[in-house]
């Protein structure tokens, strides 16, 4: 009797978190009533509005821009990611471990911070790179406020998504497949293009689809680099619609559905590719790691890796530090760069004089903790029910909790806006709406991470406890929780970090009392004060780095604690 009640409760909870906001989003897209003015009473469903939106030229332009930016970015990401996975897995390039680790750093950089840093570096007039070029007497100027700037930043920062897939495919590939080609008389070049790349084609495709989907849902980079040049992509266009006076919530909902539709198709295609037969793995003996001796060329590949790190990590950091600490971002000559009198804490003082800054940091922490606790508990309940029990209805739970995979953060934001803005006295305006939106958005990742750690715990460990006379809850408490603790801590940590850096869904859900760091940073940027923006970017980066370090230490501690106990 307890089982149906439990399943029912989970289903209702998921429906509340996922289905209800989505339904409201659909409703918004096909009606012309304004939820703020008209409340919930007035339904005017008709498809004309939705069709009109799809026919709108601005929508077409935003859609086209998004495809070009993400498409170009994906191509660049594939080139970089593929090159890196080959360098790390298949060559004797020095310090490979360092390269492999460092090349994942871009994943932790919040998109808006990357965008801000590159606007400081590459803005056509005052960009630091252009200032440097002027000193050197070179006529060339960078312009990152452009489609190509967008593509470059996308490609460089989302290459790790491609890398993750291709590196593991290369690692799992039987090296004799390549050796056979060499012995057959083919050159190294021929081997790479006729054997290696075709064999890992599924991984390349899966990685590029994923990076495309991620780019498609990113708000921070196009907001920082596209907006100054009037280049709208779907995400920035949707936000622009809600910032209109009066806000065009219905149009935003319709465009959000378009974005979600494209994302869903790509995610579906990616899952299809991943579940297809993988060429690369072959059963049999463990492979000897095969690494190509590059001779002196290994310093060239090492140099490439350094250049990449310089571009994605070092340069942006330098830019943020200079802009954050200098009173003015004007240099009369090269020497001025080292004029210590020009540096001060003035921007930091000014952002901390603003009471919103501390509020946003405090709110971010609260939202992060609530998201981690609620999301972690929910993911545990879902993961356990789906993976460890035979109760009826667990398939539906699985399905419902997977749906958000195909919903970009920004669309979650719009959906939650529609779901709650018209309800007086509801969640809108509290930090709970942010936390719940994050829980809904990240539930698939959390459940997946937890399920992996469940799978490592043998079913018989639980059965042994049942046989000893423990009930289901007692068994979960005394066996599952302690054994899965590292996995639980890791997933909650992940949730916390994701929530802290999330921007897309916060955009539509904050009020001045519930603003969070990412939103406030956007405010500073759009306010036009580069010094304050850079200073707050640094504050946010340092907080993120400290949190990451702390949580890594926490989950490592949890893992060791279990190892000792076991």
């Amino acid at each position: 009797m307890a089982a149906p009640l439990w399943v029912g409760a989970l289903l209702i909870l998921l429906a509340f978190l996922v289905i209800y906001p989505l339904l409201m989003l659909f409703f918004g897209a096909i009606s012309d009533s304004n939820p703020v003015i008209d409340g919930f009473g007035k339904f005017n469903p008709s498809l004309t509005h939705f069709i009109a939106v799809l026919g709108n030229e601005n929508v077409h332009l935003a859609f086209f821009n998004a495809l070009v930016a993400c498409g170009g970015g994906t191509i660049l990401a594939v080139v970089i990611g593929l090159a890196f996975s080959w360098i790390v897995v298949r060559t004797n390039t020095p310090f490979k471990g360092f390269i492999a680790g460092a090349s994942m750093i871009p994943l932790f950089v919040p998109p808006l911070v990357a965008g801000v840093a590159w606007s400081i570096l590459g803005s056509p007039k005052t960009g630091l790179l252009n200032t440097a070029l002027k000193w050197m007497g070179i006529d060339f100027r960078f312009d990152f406020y452009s489609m190509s700037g967008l593509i470059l930043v996308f490609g460089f920062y989302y290459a790790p998504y491609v890398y993750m897939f291709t590196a593991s495919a290369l690692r799992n590939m039987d090296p004799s497949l390549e050796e056979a080609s060499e012995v057959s008389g083919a050159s190294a070049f021929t081997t790479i293009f006729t054997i290696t790349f075709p064999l890992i084609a599924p991984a390349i495709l899966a990685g590029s689809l994923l990076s495309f989907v991620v780019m498609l849902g990113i708000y921070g980079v196009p907001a920082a680099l596209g907006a100054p040049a009037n280049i709208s992509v779907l995400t920035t266009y949707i936000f622009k619609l809600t910032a209109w006076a009066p806000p065009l919530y219905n149009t935003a909902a319709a465009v959000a559905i378009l974005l979600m539709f494209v994302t869903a198709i790509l995610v579906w295609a990616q899952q299809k590719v991943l579940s297809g037969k993988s060429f690369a793995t072959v059963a049999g003996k463990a492979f000897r790691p095969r690494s190509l001796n590059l001779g002196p060329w290994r310093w060239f590949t090492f140099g490439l890796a350094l250049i990449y790190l310089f571009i994605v990590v070092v340069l942006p950091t330098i830019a943020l530090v200079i802009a954050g600490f200098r009173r003015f971002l004007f240099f009369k000559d090269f020497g001025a760069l080292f004029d210590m009198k020009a540096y001060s804490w003035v921007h930091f003082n000014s952002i901390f004089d603003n009471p919103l800054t501390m509020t946003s940091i405090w709110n971010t922490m609260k939202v992060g903790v609530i998201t981690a606790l609620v999301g972690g508990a929910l993911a545990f309940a879902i993961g356990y029910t789906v993976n460890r029990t035979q109760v009826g209805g667990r398939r539906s739970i699985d399905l419902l909790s997977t749906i958000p995979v195909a919903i970009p953060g920004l669309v979650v934001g719009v959906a939650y806006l529609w779901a709650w803005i018209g309800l007086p006295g509801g969640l809108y305006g509290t930090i709970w709406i942010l936390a719940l939106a994050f829980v809904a958005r990240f539930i698939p990742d959390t459940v997946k991470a937890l399920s992996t750690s469940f799978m490592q715990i043998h079913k018989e460990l639980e059965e042994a406890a049942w046989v000893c006379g423990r009930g289901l809850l007692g068994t979960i408490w005394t066996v599952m929780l302690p054994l899965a603790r590292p996995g639980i801590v890791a997933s909650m940590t992940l949730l916390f970090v994701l929530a802290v850096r999330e921007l897309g869904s916060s955009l539509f859900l904050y009020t001045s009392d519930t603003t969070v760091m990412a939103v406030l940073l956007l405010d500073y940027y759009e306010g036009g004060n580069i010094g304050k923006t850079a200073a707050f970017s640094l504050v946010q980066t340092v907080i993120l780095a400290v949190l990451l370090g702390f949580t890594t230490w926490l989950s490592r501690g949890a893992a060791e604690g279990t190892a000792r106990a076991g």
Partner: protein
Amino acid sequence: MTSALLIQDLVKRFSTGKPAVDGVSFDVPAGEIVVLLGPSGCGKTTTLRCVAGLEHPTGGRISIGGRTVSELQRGVLVSPRERDIGMVFQSYAVWPHMTVRQNVAYPLKHRRNGGGGDIDTKVKETLELVGLGEYADRSATLLSGGQMQRVALARSLVYRPQLLLLDEPLSNLDAKLRIRLRDELRRILKATGMTGLYVTHDQAEAVVLGDRIGVMREGKLLQMAPPGEIYNRPADSFVANFTGASNVLLGKVLERKGERATIDLGQAGRIEAWTPQPLSAGDRARVALRAENIRLGERGPANSFTGRVVERRYQGMQTVYDVEFGGQKLEVLELGTAARHSDGEVAMHLPPDTCWAYRDEGQAAVD
């Protein structure tokens, strides 16, 4: 006649541990198949991969068809693609994104010196040879293990390389198929007149396929000889043990005349044995015996003893007896569906030619 393959003092040292190959020398005349046999980790596969050029030797010389392809001292190192060799990998390494025909045609298309001629005809002929004529257009992912093995073989034969290297090509197949393909492999190799170097840990494969067998252990080549000699005249106690002479009698050398030695087994008496090693009187010796070479219920001119059957294990086509003999234990195998001896005393003949005496260097030298 020049050797198709000549290896001199080959050494391969990885960054850690003992050298994987430690001073191996042998040659393979054209048209002959040499099998390297040994337990895993003995250096046989590393030797093969050095010949292929997939590993780079740290010492010694390798020449293929009279051309030096690897000699560190002179700075010679020819890449695998320039060595004119074919190789069948343990995992077959059949490319799953191609059809059977594309796999086999690949070397012809990408070799610098494709050898001319019509690719289609060559591929067709080779597929016929390995019995896959009808599978040419099948995707490689739809093949069984045995078929993949044949595709790999066809792919390495199609361009008629000077030397064919085979790295445990049958070890991923089930037992029945392995035996069938083993016999067929020898037929195909002999039909093409191919020179081959074949690596395996399976004695039965080595005996059927090899014109000569080289037994390796810990990076050293212990003995290189035709199969009959490996089985009847093992050069040392490891070769004897590895090829199945699992009975050991411990004793002391009394005297030695030529290759004959007389050994004192203590309680059990004296035994005449063949020995390849220069043993002298007083040396501790190990006498190795194959279970199937011991004759129960028979007497001969020399080495006739009385033992006691303590256990009998009937196995249908053969019977295995545990025989106690002067405080030592022997395992005896008799073919036939009848178990002829029962527990108790039994006459026993150990033909001197089948008793092989080696210097006793402890059990560790055998394992």
